[in-house]
């Protein structure tokens, strides 16, 4: 139980607070519209459907405010930077921004559904009241129209009653149907449009579509601009009406049984109604401004010049770019977004930085993985020697959990497949820090696990490990870095090859002193070994790899952690793009 609190406590707390605010808003506004005396007459027409529409509206206001914030990467980086003092657990929560964004989106979808259904009922009942189907009180209330001469204000927004289809010389005034009402009022029209935008955004964000065709998701998601524009104007029609106090006051309890006498007796002056002032803009204007600043910042970053220092084509279609940009500062394990207008104007793709912050340039290793990367590699292959590459926009760098590697005394770094890339940056940075005896480096011991199916695309990483291996030996620091390589895609040809070269000092696959393991690691043994070698330490486990592995490691961290400060504690950090 204690282990669970250590690893998931803060996250659960934030969720409970968020849900609590949602519930509070829902109940508060439900009661406000249900019990408020100014809505007594509105209730006569609509029943509790009014409250059922207004309560989700309040929750929607809150969540639409929240939804833009988790996707402001630069804002999150700023918060991250300023909270360096507040410990690792708080900053870890910022990594889960996309999960929170999705959660808020689900809540918006749910509340939109409730809100829409309630308003469907409202429209239908308004029309029925106007047609006199519910008796004299609702009928009389509905008949009130805005009329300065008669000093009346409307309650029921439905204009025309059932008595005949009035045909003017040019206009046909038809009795209002719900559909006509929806499309001729601001609230109705904006409501339908933004709900449609929401549905399109949600269907194109389904995991299948997002993972396979990111562009469809990304371009469709820009419908949020229409969503927010419509949302702000949704309440402008002010058709949710409440009763105003008149002089002399209108006594609803006494007057409700005699609508025919309104305006004729002193206790019952004609009731006056006014629409509620639109509230939504107050909630969303802040985040909208912040988001606009965020996009503007990305644009400015894009305009800054990026110079190519070196372009290297590695075997297996891996491109290494060494770039220089003035004022670029990074931390180990961060990533940047690249945009190449020559390939695509609007696409920004994330790539992990593989250089250390101690170097005065930054490096990216880009593997051929899709249209954009293939085009980039082809363009740069055909480039003449020594010339600059195409214009590149760089946004970032953005923080990830890997920045925290140096804060832990002991670190377990697990890189699976392409996920090994951030660790290139980290290992290089560690090497530099060690050479400079940097006091910021609290790490005493690193365990590095490299899992991949085949080492083809990662010869450059094996080279890095070779260099580190040599350096560590020269300084007599062999224990500092323990690395284990797991080749998960071996077959009988591999096995035969290894058997033949069994006696050699270095590994046949990588050329490293540390021999390659075959198959997947047995995590229980690994965690047990780390625990035994490092009692009473705080161990940070960092993964860059698939979800299934994340689940396994998270479970192991919880299993092998102990709340007892004399025993080892494992914290799990995952990177995700």
């Amino acid at each position, binding site marked *: 139980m204690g282990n669970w609190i250590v690893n998931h406590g803060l996250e659960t707390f934030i969720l409970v607070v968020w849900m609590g605010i949602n519930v509070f808003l829902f109940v508060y506004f439900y009661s406000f519209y249900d019990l408020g005396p100014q809505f007594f007459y509105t209730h006569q027409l609509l029943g509790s459907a009014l409250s059922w529409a207004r309560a989700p509206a309040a929750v929607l206001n809150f969540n639409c405010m929240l939804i833009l914030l988790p996707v402001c990467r630069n804002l999150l980086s700023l918060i991250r930077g300023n909270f360096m003092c507040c410990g690792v657990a708080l900053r870890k929560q910022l990594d889960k921004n996309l999960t929170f964004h999705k959660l808020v989106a689900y809540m918006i979808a749910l509340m939109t559904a409730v809100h829409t259904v309630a308003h469907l009922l409202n429209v239908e009942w308004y029309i029925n009241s106007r047609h006199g189907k519910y008796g004299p009180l609702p009928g009389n209330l509905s008949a009130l129209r805005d009329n300065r001469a008669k000093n009346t204000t409307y309650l029921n927004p439905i204009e025309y009653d059932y008595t005949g289809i009035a045909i003017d010389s040019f206009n046909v005034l038809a009795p209002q149907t719900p559909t006509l009402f929806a499309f001729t009022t601001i609230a109705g029209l904006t409501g339908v449009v933004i709900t449609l935008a929401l549905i399109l955004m949600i269907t194109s964000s389904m995991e299948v579509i997002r993972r396979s065709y990111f562009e469809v998701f990304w371009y469709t998601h820009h419908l949020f601009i229409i969503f927010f524009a419509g949302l702000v104007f949704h309440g402008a029609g002010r058709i949710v009406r409440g009763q105003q106090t008149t002089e002399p006051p209108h006594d609803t309890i006494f007057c409700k049984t005699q609508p025919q006498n309104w305006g004729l007796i002193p206790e019952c002056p004609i009731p006056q109604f006014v629409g509620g002032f639109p509230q939504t803009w107050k909630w969303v204007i802040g985040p909208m401004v912040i988001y606009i600043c965020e996009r503007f910042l990305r644009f400015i970053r894009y305009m800054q010049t990026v110079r190519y220092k070196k372009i290297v084509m590695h075997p297996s279609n891996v491109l290494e770019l060494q770039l220089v940009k003035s004022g670029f500062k990074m931390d180990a394990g961060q990533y940047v977004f690249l945009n190449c207008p020559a390939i695509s104007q609007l696409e920004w793709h994330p790539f992990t930085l593989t250089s250390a912050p101690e170097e005065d340039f930054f490096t990216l290793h880009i593997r051929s993985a899709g249209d954009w990367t293939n085009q980039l590699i082809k363009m740069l292959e055909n480039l003449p020697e020594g010339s600059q590459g195409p214009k590149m926009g760089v946004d970032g760098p953005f923080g990830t959990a890997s920045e925290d590697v140096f804060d832990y005394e002991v670190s377990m770094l697990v890189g699976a497949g392409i996920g090994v890339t951030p660790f290139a940056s980290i290992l290089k940075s560690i090497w530099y820090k060690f050479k400079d005896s940097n006091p910021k480096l609290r790490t005493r011991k690193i365990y590095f696990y490299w899992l991949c199916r085949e080492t083809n695309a990662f010869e450059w990483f094996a080279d890095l490990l070779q260099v580190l291996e040599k350096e560590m030996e020269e300084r007599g620091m062999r224990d500092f870095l323990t690395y284990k390589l797991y080749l998960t895609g071996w077959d*009988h040809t591999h096995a035969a090859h290894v058997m033949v070269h069994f006696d050699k000092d270095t590994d046949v696959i990588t050329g490293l002193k540390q021999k390659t393991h075959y198959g997947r690691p047995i995590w229980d043994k690994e965690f047990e070994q780390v625990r035994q070698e490092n009692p009473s330490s705080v161990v940070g486990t960092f993964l860059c790899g698939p979800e299934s592995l994340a689940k396994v490691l998270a479970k192991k961290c919880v299993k092998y952690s102990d709340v007892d400060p004399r025993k080892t504690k494992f914290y799990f950090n995952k990177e995700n793009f």
Partner: protein
Amino acid sequence: MGKIEWAMWANEQALAAGFIYLTGGIVGVAGQFSGWKFAAFGIAAGVFVCLLEYPRSKRIKGTNFERTGQYCFTVCVKAFGPLTRNYYVRAFLHAVLCIPGGFMLATVLGCVCLGIASLIYLSAAIHGEHWEPILPEAEPTKHVSQSIKQPPQNPPPRPPADMRRKRLDDLEAAAYVNPIPVRE
């Protein structure tokens, strides 16, 4: 934009549209709205669209992610042959089904969503896509490599018998190194 199978998005959109059509229909019927007959149609059409769209198609390339329990639906949908395979038919069908929804506010959202799904299916059909059922593949028989079938004919190589016999007089010469190290 990369090569996209439009049908995948059309499928998600149509399934969502089916649910929305269904929900709108239920509200219309339960609330006894005027025009409830359109709502009743909406319920039927919504259910039909959901059943038709639930099984995902097999992708041209890439991993298939089946929806939970979609196998029985796959079998039903497959039984209609070219009617369900062809996306022109589906686009037309969705367009026709969505029209009655436009006559009533409760179902108008379902109508528009289904209409959009119909357009995306049309795009998919123009790009030459069609619906393929995801069926479980038969397990390929394990390929037994040649050497295992024949047990070895000869015993493993050993030094000649007289060398193997224990030679107590000359222990030094009798020793030989095992070619493969013996583990304790």
